[in-house]
């Protein structure tokens, strides 16, 4: 028993030596994740984009229309940057990417409105930039409703109604919105919470594959296995344990950063998320080990790891819901550990629901952790018989 620990310790020491001496490990284990932690949170620091450029085509140019424009400018997401003489100029400005949307008021709008001939105003939103387009749509539509409401209110007042009566008449049914978990509609909360663990997961895939695969490539696998007394379990435990430790520290770091420092919603308490972070580290290591065991060629396994990791961001459903994907993809999504992590995060941190609603992603995470069992024998055979083909 003692000698078993001794051997694991020796292998771990050997691994720590190579982590310290090879700069690629520093990059993959510390610099790359750390960079992404800082990058995404500072990029989306504002949470919700505000003051996005909008244009105006005001062919009517009366006190009323100018008032509408002034009100629109005061909206949160909108900043009116320019006025254009006609539709074509405004469209051109959109094509030049100077504005994301514009508001069009045709000639005679005020006159028609006052005389009850229902003029028509319009707004154009560029959905090639979906986030900008959607947020501006909200502002522009509200403004259009308000413009209409202002006229209606004026005519109701003329008939003798007071302000409250006018509002009651104009808008009988009101919608109250409650955004659960993220009432500020903060995009950084919405995206950073999944992208950051996603990057860490990707780097764990690659590091695990690289550290095992490069033994095969540089022909040191026999020495590694000998040092472990011929036991593949000792060899892998000793090798991966130091990495597990460093990656767990990295996951601890993002948990503290997101929930402790940035105060992103964490309804389950930070301890739960730290444990889920540990699950993420182990599941990613398990998956990486499974890949290199299955495809014992460093280059192929790394390529698969890269593609798997990058597709994770899309298929996890954090931006485009899995529900809206084609049926086969909805099932395939579970083959990506980030999908389960995302579901766990939503269940625990975002909503603070009980563990009984998260049994499926938990089981899948545990399945990923135990995945290497299937390739232990194959990997050992490879290590004994492998010849590197460049």
């Amino acid at each position: 028993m003692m000698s078993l620990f001794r051997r694991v310790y020796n292998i771990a020491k050997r691994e720590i030596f190579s982590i310290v001496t090879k700069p690629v490990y520093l990059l993959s284990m510390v610099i790359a994740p750390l960079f992404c932690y800082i990058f995404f949170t500072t990029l989306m620091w504002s949470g919700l984009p505000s003051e996005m450029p909008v244009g105006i085509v005001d062919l009517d140019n009366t006190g009323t229309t100018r008032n509408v424009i002034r009100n629109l400018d005061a909206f949160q997401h909108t900043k009116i940057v320019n006025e254009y003489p006609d539709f074509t100029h405004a469209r051109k400005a959109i094509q030049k990417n100077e504005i994301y949307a514009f508001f069009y008021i045709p000639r005679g709008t005020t006159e028609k409105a006052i005389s009850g001939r229902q003029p028509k105003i319009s707004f154009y939103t560029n959905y090639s930039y979906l986030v900008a387009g959607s947020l501006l749509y909200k502002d522009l539509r509200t403004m259009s409703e308000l413009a209409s409401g202002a006229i209606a209110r004026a005519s109701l007042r003329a008939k003798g109604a007071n302000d409250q009566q006018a509002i009651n008449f104009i808008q009988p049914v009101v919608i109250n919105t409650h955004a659960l978990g993220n009432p500020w509609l903060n995009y950084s909360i919405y995206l950073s919470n999944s992208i950051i663990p996603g990057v860490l997961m990707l780097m764990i895939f690659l590091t695990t594959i690289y550290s095992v695969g490069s033994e095969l490539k540089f022909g040191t696998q026999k020495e590694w296995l000998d040092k472990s007394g011929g036991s593949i379990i000792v060899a892998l435990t000793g090798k991966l344990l130091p990495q597990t430790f460093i990656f767990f520290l990295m996951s601890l770091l993002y948990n503290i950063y997101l929930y402790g420092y940035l105060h992103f919603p964490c309804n389950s308490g930070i301890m739960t998320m730290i444990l889920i972070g540990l699950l993420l580290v182990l599941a990613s290591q398990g998956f990486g080990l499974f890949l290199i065991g299955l495809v014992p060629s460093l280059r192929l396994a790394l390529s698969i790891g890269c593609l798997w990791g990058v597709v994770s961001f899309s298929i996890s459903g954090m931006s485009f819901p899995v529900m809206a994907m084609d049926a086969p993809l909805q099932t395939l999504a579970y083959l990506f550990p980030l999908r389960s992590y995302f579901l766990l995060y939503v269940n625990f941190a975002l909503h603070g629901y009980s563990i009984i609603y998260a049994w499926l992603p938990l089981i899948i995470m545990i399945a990923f952790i135990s995945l290497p069992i299937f390739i232990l024998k194959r990997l050992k055979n490879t290590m004994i018989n492998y010849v590197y083909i460049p």
Partner: protein
Amino acid sequence: MKRKNLYNIITQGISDMMIIWMNELKNVVKDQGILIFFILVPLAYPILYTYIYNNEVIREVPVAAVDDNRSSMSREFLKYVDANPDTRIVTYPANMEEAKEAMMEGKIYGIIYIPDDFTKTLVKGEQANVSIFCDLSGMLYYKALITSATNSSLMMNKEIKISKMGNSTDRQDEIATAPIAYDDIALFNPQAGFASFLIPAVLILIIQQTLLLGIGLAAGTARENNRFRDLVPINRHYHGTLRIVLGKSLLYFMLYVIMSTYILVFVPKMFSLPQIGNPFTIAQFILPYLLSAIFFAMTCSVLIRHRETCMIVYIFTSVPLLFISGISWPGTAIPEFWKIVSYIFPSTFGINGFVQINNMGATIEDVSTGYKALWIQAGIYFITTFFVYRYQIIMSRRHVWRRYKEISRKKRIK
């Protein structure tokens, strides 16, 4: 005499360049790893990616309706919500507790709550509140629910107003309920679809990232096969820096003209993504993009010591590069510091210009800033490639020279 020399140098240079071109072609074709990044990924990845987002929008988001009023008016409101393409009422729980339970189980993504005094308030001529609760694990759920609820309330409001006014004609009703009508027009992506918005950017990014990976891999292989771990072999054809840089880049360029045509023309066509750009404008714009991406990748490739490390070094940059380009996250909301950082990468200008031309039908003049920036990048990265290769040649000569001296010293000792 001098003219003949120059003539000789040029013809020699061109023939060396062609030999280097040929050697590089052999390297690429022989190498499974490079083929993955130059051929397989550009072929398969756009299809996979587009397939994921291909449904464009989310429809029929399942929601629960808690109707405490149970009147004909509340049912009418819910009928509108259900009929809206964005949402579908899948369950009518008796109370909020049951509705929350369904939400925790992941059966629904939103709750619509109608209070018991809904009809009474409306009949009194006051404002009635309808509450919606939305799961914020996806912004699209929220968008679907709020659009559906707002539209339903507007329709309902219109009916209530008409019933109260007692006008005689339909036209009168319409004018009285909406003194000013409005039209909203979605430009260039009429259904506000996800694939139409994200995929054009991803396509451009795939070109740069696969070039980085493929060229990095080739450089790593060249070093591993070299006795002194040098990037440039000692060989009579590999004399001039210019011919090495041109020979290699010409091969990458020719290969990527074919791949780009597939990625940027056929993939959007296959999935009916927006494609209103003039093909010649796209070609004209992609030319400097390819050149800057190739020289950028060649400059970066000197950092790659072993062939496999390039994947670790490059792959994680893909997601930040997509965000920094200003497509996912609006360009106007990107902090100044990151904006400046983004100017380093060809993808920033490439993505924006391509989206403008391809999705929005912009002309070269409309994208002139990005177009010029790409040419400037192509120039700068060509120069940096030239110098890093020049340095590599000097290094490899020095290695060989040192080795030669060592050998001759040993001989002398013997």
